[in-house]
């Protein structure tokens, strides 16, 4: 029983990060149909910038804020200089552009930062909290609380503000949104900014647990993408559920079966789910027009 609790908590912690990455994928996809494979690089930028500003003597809370601002600027630049000029290109061309962007950002991080692994101090120390026989890192709770807060904030923003409703309208039908006077270009830019911010926060929250380096983005993008598809592309609820599920799957597979094959188990389950539900858990059915 303590084992189960332990695995559940570590799974939820990692899953929360996957969920945030998947949420970033979903936001950008809904607004612009772009699958942004540079999403993982936002996570890397958040963590690495905080680490290096901290090393330069900036107090960590301020460093974290600056890191988020910088990542948002990178997200906006990505939209303005790479996605916007290629407007109207096919989906796979846009994917290759974002992959090019992720190679570029990884290369830049290698030059600006370095190639070593870095960590941030935990917010509330490293003494594990005993709970039902399981040892829980305080930082895990920070990650979970942070993820819950981001999801709630995002929900309030999308559901309660005019700007948020403009995002929903753009996601639902771009042409109709333009007809009612929404500047869809700016909305797409905004979705890149929000995704970048979410990614950066995830990177800052998880850095004390999993370490960060210039190349953590690739794997996170891959897992976040898988989580988003598991949940059903375009569904924010699906992204969160998919991310948490993927984290739990990995933790249980690593704990009960084999840590070497944890990714294999996770992907086998994803394959099985997709074969049973070809649009993911919460995806909308679509009709092909001929």
């Amino acid at each position, binding site marked *: 029983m303590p084992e189960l609790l332990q695995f559940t908590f570590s799974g939820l912690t990692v899953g929360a990060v996957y969920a945030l990455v998947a949420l970033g994928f979903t936001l950008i996809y809904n607004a612009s149909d772009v699958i942004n494979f540079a999403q993982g690089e936002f996570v890397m930028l958040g963590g690495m910038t905080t680490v290096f500003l901290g090393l330069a003597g900036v107090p960590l809370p301020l460093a974290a804020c600056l890191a988020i601002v910088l990542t948002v600027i990178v997200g906006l630049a990505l939209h303005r200089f790479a996605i916007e000029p290629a407007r109207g290109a096919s989906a796979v061309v846009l994917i*290759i552009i974002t992959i090019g962007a992720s190679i570029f950002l990884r290369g830049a991080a290698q030059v600006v930062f370095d190639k070593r692994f870095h960590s941030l101090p935990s917010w509330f120390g490293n003494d594990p909290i005993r709970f039902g026989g399981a040892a829980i890192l305080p930082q895990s709770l920070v990650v979970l609380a942070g993820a819950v807060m981001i999801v709630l904030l995002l929900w309030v923003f999308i559901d309660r503000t005019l700007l948020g409703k403009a995002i929903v309208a753009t996601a639902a039908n771009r042409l109709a949104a333009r007809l009612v006077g929404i500047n869809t270009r700016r909305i797409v830019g905004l979705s890149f900014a929000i995704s970048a911010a979410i990614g950066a926060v995830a990177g800052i929250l998880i850095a004390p647990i999993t370490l960060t380096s210039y190349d953590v983005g690739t794997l996170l993008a891959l897992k976040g*993408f898988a989580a988003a598809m598991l949940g059903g*592309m375009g569904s924010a609820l699906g992204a969160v559920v998919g991310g948490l599920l993927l984290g739990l799957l990995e933790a249980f597979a690593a704990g009960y079966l084999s840590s070497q094959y944890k990714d294999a188990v996770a992907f086998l389950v994803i394959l099985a789910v997709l074969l049973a539900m070809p649009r993911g858990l919460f995806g909308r059915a679509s009709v092909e027009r*001929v």
Partner: protein
Amino acid sequence: MRTILEHRLASIPVMTVIVLVLPLLFPSGYYYRVAALVLVFALAAIGLNLLMGLAGQVSLGHAGFMGIGAYAVAIGPAHLGVPSWLSFILGAALSALVAYLVGRPILRLKGHYLAVATLGFGLLLAIVFNNEAGLTGGPDGMPVPRLVLFAWPLRGPDTWYWITAASFLIGATLALNLIESPTGRALRAIHDSEVAARTLGVDVARKKLAIFVLSAVYASVAGSYFALLNGHITPDISGFLRSIELVAMVVLGGMGSIAGSLVGAALLVVLPQTLTVLHDYEHMVLGLIVMAVMIFLRAGIVPTVANALVRRI
């Protein structure tokens, strides 16, 4: 002039001449090696191009099939006592079988869902290659025995250049013929609209599976060549980044353009080799070039240039 240029096999003589003349410019064996690598990846890219450019089905796991081909020529002679040439053929057959078994369920998925399913498949293979150290040597990889044909060991980058060049030209000719065949037309119909294709009497599932199997065989053959050329093989051959690289080759060169696959492969094999002079800035420049090509030549390099040329004439 136009009719010649627009003939379906027009690019074959051009590519043949390039392949024959290019070695005259090679100052050293290193150039043969890089050129052979380009041709190997071009072969894999052609296969993926048939799947993506022709049939419109995305695969983010094609490096998995390269891995099967590569490990076949490594494990066959080393552990099972099967001669290299036979392992090569058995590897291709195994890839076809795996593609057939995996393709049946997952080709029902569409678009990004297919992408994530194929991604998972490629990852599974990479994990197996990484962890079954007794058979594959684990993350460090394993040596690949030299290919011996009729008691004649194949060695030297120039030998491999001519072998891969011949294979590439054969693969390209087959692909170009397939594109203009009834099957090719059926696949293009599927690309445009599966529902419409089905209404016209195309057996959609069957055609998609057939092209998936064929593209897997292309990848497997390329993987075997890669292993034999390198003399050493690691699980990276079937990693996610390798799969992404193959997709990027197809898209950069031009989806649906066979000559484009050669150009895309050349770009992504040669660029990293030349960019090493930039040391730390290597990846930044590579990323910028990939983005710039896609933004300014969004149909891919070869189709954009070819269109511009044809309009001139």
